[in-house]
């Protein structure tokens, strides 16, 4: 009988090469599935289990995951774009024109990169407001909120530095308008303006600086803080849900009628919340 693709994949997982690369081993037991997360350098940022309730769309609108998605798209399209681009004046504009009309799929790459960048800025703002209105900034998550604010600023800077790179009228004057704001800082405004642009006006130096910031420094900074952001979700007790907070659990265990306190407009959210145990129990891992 012919083997299925999945059986070939299972055979592959048994090879010594595969086993040497992936530390978690094979199988589909709860332990092995937990090890897939815990034994992987990237995935171990996440917890091995997540509250089922937090996976409903309404809990997070998946805004964090979607923001990560736009970042992936931006990296995947940004690297090929770099191959066709020289950060020099006026070659940058000619390269952008070539991307539009000469390079195969260049137009598509540039479109996808640009629209994804706009989407990322929008999603980061949406994510921030969603987290705020859920109250998910509460201790012990306060520092993760601060990292989120840093990531918001990095995202704005990434988008802003990328705005100059096509070196067309739109880019040039948008950056001129934006960078003039830096001059308004008391006392050191002109120094900041000069440092940012490498001159007194937007010129070739500014283009090179924005290119280095956009393609290297800011993406690395974003990855650094995103890693901490994800890791802190796990260390701070997983995705926030009010009715799972220790204080709320204790209060509702002491006084079951107080569970109505979390009533929201129209929908009493606490109805689907499990009744907190009056005695402390440790639940074993589900099979």
């Amino acid at each position, binding site marked *: 009988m012919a083997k299925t693709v999945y059986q070939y994949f299972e055979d592959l997982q048994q090879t010594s090469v595969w086993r040497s690369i992936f530390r978690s081993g094979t199988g589909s037991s709860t332990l092995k*599935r*937990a090890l897939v*997360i815990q034994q992987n350098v990237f*995935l171990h940022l*996440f917890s*091995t*289990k*997540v*509250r*089922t309730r937090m996976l409903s769309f309404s809990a997070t609108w*998946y805004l964090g*995951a*979607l923001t990560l*998605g736009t970042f992936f798209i931006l990296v995947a399209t940004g690297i090929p774009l770099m191959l066709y681009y020289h950060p020099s*004046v*006026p070659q940058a504009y000619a390269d*952008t024109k070539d991307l*539009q009309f000469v390079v195969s799929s260049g137009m*598509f790459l540039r*479109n*996808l*990169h640009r*629209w994804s960048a706009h989407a990322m800025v929008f999603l980061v703002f949406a994510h*921030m*407001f969603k987290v*705020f*209105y859920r109250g998910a*900034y*509460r*201790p012990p*998550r*306060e520092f993760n909120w601060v990292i989120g*604010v840093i990531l*918001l*600023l990095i995202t704005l800077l990434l988008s*802003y530095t990328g*705005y100059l790179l096509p*070196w*067309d*009228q*739109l*880019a*040039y004057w948008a950056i*001129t*308008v*934006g960078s003039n*704001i830096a*001059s*308004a800082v008391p006392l050191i*405004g002109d120094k900041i303006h000069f440092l940012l642009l490498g001159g007194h006006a*937007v010129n070739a130096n500014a283009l090179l600086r924005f290119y280095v910031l956009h393609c290297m420094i800011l993406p690395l900074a974003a990855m650094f803080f995103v890693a901490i952001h994800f890791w802190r979700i796990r260390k701070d007790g997983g995705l926030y849900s009010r009715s799972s907070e*220790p204080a709320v*659990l204790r209060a509702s265990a002491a006084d079951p009628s107080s569970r109505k306190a979390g*009533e929201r*407009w*129209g929908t009493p959210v606490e109805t689907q919340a*499990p009744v907190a*145990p009056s005695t402390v129990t440790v*639940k074993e891992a*589900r099979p």
Partner: protein
Amino acid sequence: MTGSKDFVAGIDSNAKRSPRRIVFITRRTSAQVKAESEDQLQTFPEVLFRAAVAIQVLAIVLVWIALFFNAPLEGLADPSHTPNPAKAPWYFLGLQEMLHYFPPVVAGVLVPGLVVMALIVIPYFKVNIEADGLFLKNRGKRLRIFCIVATTLSLFLVLFKVYVALVPTLIVTGTMLLAAQSSSQSPYAFRRYLAARPLSYWVMTWFLVELVVLTMIGTFFRGPGWSLIWPWQGS
């Protein structure tokens, strides 16, 4: 434990001579066991799969947009020819709109600086953690303070003729006054909802509305010389 000592330790604490692992149990504390009674799912494969599907849907939407809408590209940058109006990227147009009314040091430095500071300190204030309804306690005093702040802010906006920011401010103010007249015993669910909103909610909502309104005005309703135009009049 009894007596005045908070803990009891081994007599010999020289770890090199007699290595021993000891536990200090201080008074009023004990090892904590966290209650966990909720249903949970394995991150692998369930959660990662869902995240991947969400990202794929997003990618499909963005690819369709990229196929049908071209990114703008204008003529070569020309420092000697200023387009009118010269606009910043859309997410800074709220700021640029404010630059129209206030001096750059206020609109470009003070306001964004204060906004970032305010965002950072949100989780470090106890009032934001407890999140009680703004007017539920000390109603009279808080209402007076609120009226003074709202009036001052509105007069300030009138003084600088920032009517586009004044309208959202008045709407939020009116909603807050309605919240002040509501309580958890109000007949309507909406008013019960308003009554339970804390201070940070109102500040953030005001910020959100202003952000959206100013950005929309700057993006769609500003033409040559930063004059008010209709979106279909173009520029």
